[in-house]
């Protein structure tokens, strides 16, 4: 379903070893934020010059209800150590109730990832309104610390292979499937 753009095969991979060594492990956290509340909170954190862990990379969607569970699975499969979903507080959704849909999916998704051996702390859903920059800061810091303590995501195949498997064009989520394709098509820089 995903048309693959292969550009990252040439992404530098020299630091992979240092990534996995426990002491300088820096978690990679993909943050899927809704446009109206949590993305705004992140903007406010910026204008307020708050400091938080630099591990979070924000991907903007219009509503947390837009977040397909496959986005999360894809992020894990492609090397995320954690995924943070941010939406408006219950009752405050810009689109009335998209955040409730996000919550439903999140509940189910957490069970799925746990059954795949991914610790539940690696997936987090937070309601952060546009004015709650400080809460955003706390959540980002907490999550970075929690995942640093957990260590890199250990999938049933070595994470490096996933990370090398960029461009494998796999049907995404299951680590096993991704692993197979990765094994076939590992691109060596």
């Amino acid at each position, binding site marked *: 379903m995903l048309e693959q753009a292969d550009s990252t095969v040439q992404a530098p991979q020299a630091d992979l070893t240092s990534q996995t060594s426990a002491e300088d492990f820096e978690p990679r956290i993909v943050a899927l934020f809704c446009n109206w509340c949590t993305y705004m909170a992140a903007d406010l954190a910026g204008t307020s010059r708050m400091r938080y862990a630099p591990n979070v990379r924000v991907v903007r969607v219009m509503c947390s209800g837009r977040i397909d569970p496959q986005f999360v699975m894809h992020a894990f499969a492609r090397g995320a150590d954690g995924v943070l979903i941010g939406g408006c507080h219950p009752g405050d959704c810009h689109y009335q109730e998209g955040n409730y849909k996000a919550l439903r999916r999140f509940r189910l998704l957490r069970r799925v990832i746990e059954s795949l051996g991914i610790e539940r702390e690696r997936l987090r859903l937070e309601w952060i309104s546009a004015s709650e920059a400080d809460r955003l*800061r706390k959540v980002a810091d907490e999550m970075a610390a929690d995942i640093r303590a957990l260590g890199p995501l250990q999938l049933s195949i070595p994470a490096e292979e996933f990370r090398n498997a960029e461009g494998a064009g796999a049907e995404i989520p299951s680590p096993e499937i991704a692993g197979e394709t990765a094994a076939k098509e590992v691109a060596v820089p």
Partner: protein
Amino acid sequence: MLRENGFGSGPTSGGKTNGAPVNGDPPIRIGVYVCHCGTNIARTVDVERVTEKAGELPGVTIARDYKYMCSDPGQELIKEDIEELGLNRIVVASCSPNLHEGTFRGATAAGGLNPFFFQMVNIREHASWVHEDRESATDKAIDLVRAAVRRVHHHKALETRRVPIKPEVLVVGGGIAGISAALTLADGGKHVYLIEREASIGGHMAQFDKTFPTLDCAACILTPKMTQVRNHPNITLMTMTEVVKVDGFVGSYEVTVKHRPRFIDVSLCVGCQQCIDACVYKRGKFEDEFDAGLSMRKPIYLPNAQAVPQVVLIDPEQCIQFSSGKCKQTCVEACDRDAIFFDQEERIETLDVGAIIMATGFQTFDARRSPHYGYGIYPNVYTALEVERLVNASGPTGGEIVLRDGEKPTAVGIVHCVGSRNQKSNPWCSKVCCMYSLKLAHLIKEKTDAEVYNFYIDMRTPGKGFEEFYQRVASEGTHLIRGKVASVYQQADGDGELLVDVEDTLAGMVRRIPVDMLVLAVGLEPRYDAEEVRRTFNITCSGDGWFMERHPKLAPVDTFTDGVYLAGCCQGPKDIPETVAQAGAAAGQALALIGRGYMELEPNTAQVIAEDCSGCKTCIPLCPYQAILHDDAENRAEINEVLCKGCGVCVAACPSGSIVQNLFEDTEIYEEIEGVLAYA
């Protein structure tokens, strides 16, 4: 600094290449522009390294960094590069898209491209301003740029949608903010619904005596405005009315309002007040809200002497007819207009408007929450609003400043910052209290010749003529004591005399000052129901509870909800000139919106790919706007683009992946996710 990367042909693998022609489309040629934002970005993010890395990404034809991308020369760069290098995708890494996405889409369009072949990367609010470590902030910026470059490959040419805007405007709140906004709009030829929860418009300003620093009489400048509102052909005034529900969206809001019964027909009553005289209560028995509880009124009453509309009302909680049903109804007999109707009921009405101005105002801090000042304990401790009424010629004492026992005070203390600038109550400065305290000091001194002591923490008088007014009051002999009041208590044997313990930080000592009247300069705070109101209108509150503006500097009267604007103290403490100015700005914004007649909407709507849809109907109940219908003949879903607001909830739910959201296609999001993760 400039990186050229040949003609969009990055290193490839797996047979497919970003930048290579796909299905005969021209090759992808991306221009990446990394902004220094002066030093705002460049101080923390190594923009040159970001540019260098961007230049190496597949599909990137050119990567540049520039001091200020949003400046004219910055935008010109984009335009020229599109023309000269044949770029067909643009990525700008600078500030938040909320600030400059429109700017750069415009530059992209100026270069001759569809504006949606543009993607913005936020490396200021999301990187340079929130991180200290240059290395990790730079790494993050590189990741975000990579994500955008990967994403922009998949962008498509899109057209914005135009929706018509209804020309009517709703103004919520009839204080000076709402009045000013309504008059501006009405004078501009637009129809305004001005709704007010209370029985009269005028708000807090109507209660004041004089206004600082010019000391012009509040009523003299406000009542003509109120009368204009009443007489204006373009204003429909609705008092005792509240908004219960807001549906729709910018340009086409459907607002449900509830009219509370007044038990008087507004169209019949002429305000003669004979009913009040005739009431079975021979004298006032209930606290008059307008006089801050300092006078008594009957259950049937006129909100205040200058009320607009000049129409009485009945309080059903107090009127005997409502409690017993056995009143003699002398008021009905007295009314020669037959305007009294005990059976009036609550009425619901729907208003169709294109824009909404929120002017719901503030409430004053409840001084009981700071009990050490003795309010509610000692009778001679007053709030400033009460004293406004005492000073006012139309107030309970006819403008005489007297204590509750009728005596003139000889020594008056005024405590600044009550409820403000205090972590235990409200942390903010209420902005108006220093000035109104000085005003009250002047008026009290003028009317009573009492000794007046102002206890202040800092004297805050920024504003035109404010400092001069402060100097004037100081020269009149008002005692200005810099320090916090620690406690207030009543002399055991004195007749109501109060002792104020205060630190005098300029004299370096603790003082005990006897006064017989103490005025508490209560601060401003959000109304008790601001949270509920915010939800009704789907706008945001800042952490302190005031309504939040879209941008503190560049969009101070807009909200995050298009077509909803803010005026006056509902957004934060303000004095009257500022409130009026902001109301004008809000009216101007609303006029700009409805004057154009249409609104361009983001083309981020969803569509069903008909041949992939299995007709499972999963999406249909999910849509909050009922925009998805099932075509029974074809057994597939169809999305009404006009109704779709672009949340994407159906896209995420579609089991067959047959719904696509413009600007947020699955592919685009997957590319972004991969892009941020593709670092080593």
